[in-house]
């Protein structure tokens, strides 16, 4: 904006300058003429009609000139105002077009410039829109990958399979504007699909869904092993689609098979009810990563189970573990029955071990457990089996030994243990054991019966004052 200073011509606006110019080129000479006429012509000739006519016509002509100039200036002013509007940011404003003179050309040039600016700006805008779309996409991907990372870390933490599957379904729901996510597992015996995990609205309803493998809904997926898609571009037969809607309460779905070692174990799917919705290639790929995570979790679980089954020893003491000894006990009982022989079970529990734990550090506790384990193993024969049955509990299976024989050995262990801790100055650190003993056939002919009898007697031994074996 021009800074106006009323005393300076330079700072005046074009219109003001024009008035001044008009005064300079017209009013002043006119006044001079009037003055000359009044002083030198009129006194001699008087005011004649002719002179008046001249004067008036020159005033008139001068007036036309002023109008013309004014018109030119006005057009300039309009162009300027328009240009000002445009420069203030309204690029959609067009300069009003005049006849094709210099001002018109100026206006047109301005119009051309603005239209070019306008198209550039539109282009920029579309670029920025695209960029933000890409950004959004990247953000979504990052989001998904964060979820995948969470799932992986959960798997490696060794939590239960159900917890992992719940998280996977929970996170899969964030894909493709989904309202629900569901995970079927295949029942290997019955060849049916049952809902293992589901998220979103109506998830309780989803949990009730079971499906035979030959039902039309997922048959194609199970047979082909490829994705199953229901959306704008993939329309199903009316009957099947309405059946799907009835069960799942969504209009669109995308489902992928979960394979473990080439075998179908389940189906992971997401769904929503948006109109005109179609699943992108990205959606398929991302969901596929989720199915792979499930496969890893399932495989992981199977391996853990296998390892657990194979594991027979307690890591700290090197004795057998609980799982193994119970299987072994059942085997020994069966053998005893066939051979018309007895077989005994002894449970030994360290007395007041919780208190002991609070007195010494963890390493010392482990040390004592090892010592006791060694003492027990050293007291039995090669065919007897010793196990760490619980934190502070041991179990011994005595094949071919009846109650009396097993009791003799168990009493020996109890006495030895008492002796070996006798020199401890702190009475709280003098460890002792209590025990319960049961025998096949006297107390039962299954591992459970013998175990429950031994547990019962052990509890009684504790009640009766500890450091004793009850039979």
């Amino acid at each position: 904006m021009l800074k106006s200073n009323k005393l300076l011509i330079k700072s005046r606006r074009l219109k003001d300058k024009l008035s001044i110019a008009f005064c300079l080129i017209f009013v002043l000479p006119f006044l001079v003429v009037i003055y000359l006429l009044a002083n030198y012509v009129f006194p001699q000739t008087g005011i004649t009609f002719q002179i008046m006519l001249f004067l008036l016509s020159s005033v008139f002509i001068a007036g036309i000139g002023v109008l013309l100039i004014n018109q030119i200036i006005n057009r300039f002013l309009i162009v300027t105002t328009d240009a000002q509007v445009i420069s203030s940011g309204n690029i959609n404003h067009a300069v009003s077009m005049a006849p094709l003179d210099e001002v018109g050309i100026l206006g047109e040039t301005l119009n051309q410039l603005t239209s070019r600016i306008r198209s550039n700006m539109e282009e920029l805008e579309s670029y920025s829109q695209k960029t933000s779309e890409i950004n959004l996409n990247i953000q979504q991907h990052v989001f998904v990958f964060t979820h995948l990372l969470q799932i992986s870390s959960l798997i490696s933490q060794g939590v239960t399979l159900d917890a992992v599957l719940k998280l996977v379904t929970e996170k899969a729901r964030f894909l493709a504007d989904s309202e629900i996510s569901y995970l079927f597992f295949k029942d290997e015996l019955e060849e049916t699909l049952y809902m293992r995990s589901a998220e979103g609205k109506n998830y309780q309803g989803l949990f009730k869904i079971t499906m035979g493998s030959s039902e039309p809904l997922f048959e194609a997926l199970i047979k082909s092993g490829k994705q199953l898609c229901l959306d704008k571009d993939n329309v199903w037969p009316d009957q099947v689609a309405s059946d799907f809607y009835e069960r799942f309460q969504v209009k669109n779905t995308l489902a992928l098979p979960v394979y473990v070692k080439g075998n179908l174990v389940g189906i992971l799917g997401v769904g929503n009810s948006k109109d005109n919705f179609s699943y992108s290639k990205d959606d398929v790929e991302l969901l596929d990563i989720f199915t792979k995570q499930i496969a890893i979790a399932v495989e992981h679980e199977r391996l853990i189970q296998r390892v657990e089954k194979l594991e027979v020893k307690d890591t700290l003491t090197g004795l057998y573990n609980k799982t193994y000894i119970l299987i072994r006990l059942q085997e020994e009982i069966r053998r005893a029955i066939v051979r018309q022989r007895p077989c005994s079970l002894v449970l030994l529990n360290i007395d007041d071990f919780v208190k002991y734990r609070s007195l010494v550090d963890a390493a010392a506790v482990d040390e004592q457990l090892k010592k006791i384990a060694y003492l027990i193993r050293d007291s039995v024969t090669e065919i007897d089996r010793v196990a760490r049955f619980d934190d502070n509990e041991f179990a011994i299976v005595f094949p071919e030994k009846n109650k009396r024989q097993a009791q003799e050995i168990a009493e020996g262990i109890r006495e030895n243990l008492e002796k070996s801790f006798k020199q401890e100055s702190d009475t709280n650190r003098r460890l002792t054991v209590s025990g319960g003993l049961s025998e096949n056939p006297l107390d039962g002919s299954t591992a459970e019966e013998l175990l429950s009898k031994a547990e019962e007697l052990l509890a009684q031994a504790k009640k009766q004052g500890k450091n004793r074996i009850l039979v």
Partner: protein
Amino acid sequence: MKAMQIRRIIKKQLGEVLIEHGIINQGQLEKALNLQKERGGLIGEVLVELGFAKEEDIAQALTVQYGFPYLPLSNYEIGAEIANLIPARVARQYLIIPIDKIGNNLTLAMSNPLNVQAVEDVELLSGCSVQLFVSTLSDIKRAIEKYYKGKE
């Protein structure tokens, strides 16, 4: 007869006794021992099964060698309260059956009186001294079927 006494007596294996009595020969015994190793069971049973000896031969040998009296169970009636002194499970596993109880003496019939652990268990269970009789395996099994029918 106390379990402790039995343990002192049992020095010779049943197989040797049977050979001494001329009921089986060494080859038959070895055959029976091999079979026993394979599938368990008692040597007397295996010998009977193989047809090398009769049940009565086994019972007789036990009687002669170890001094256990022989009791043919078939004509014997056992009271329910006597049978109930030993749970069916124990009777079936050890192949024993209580016959009578007088005071603190329990009379027990078994096909393998050398099963000391079984005798000990019965003593522990009943709190009685056990007097042993030898019976044939089939007699014992029949008696168990009869007196412990449908019992655990």
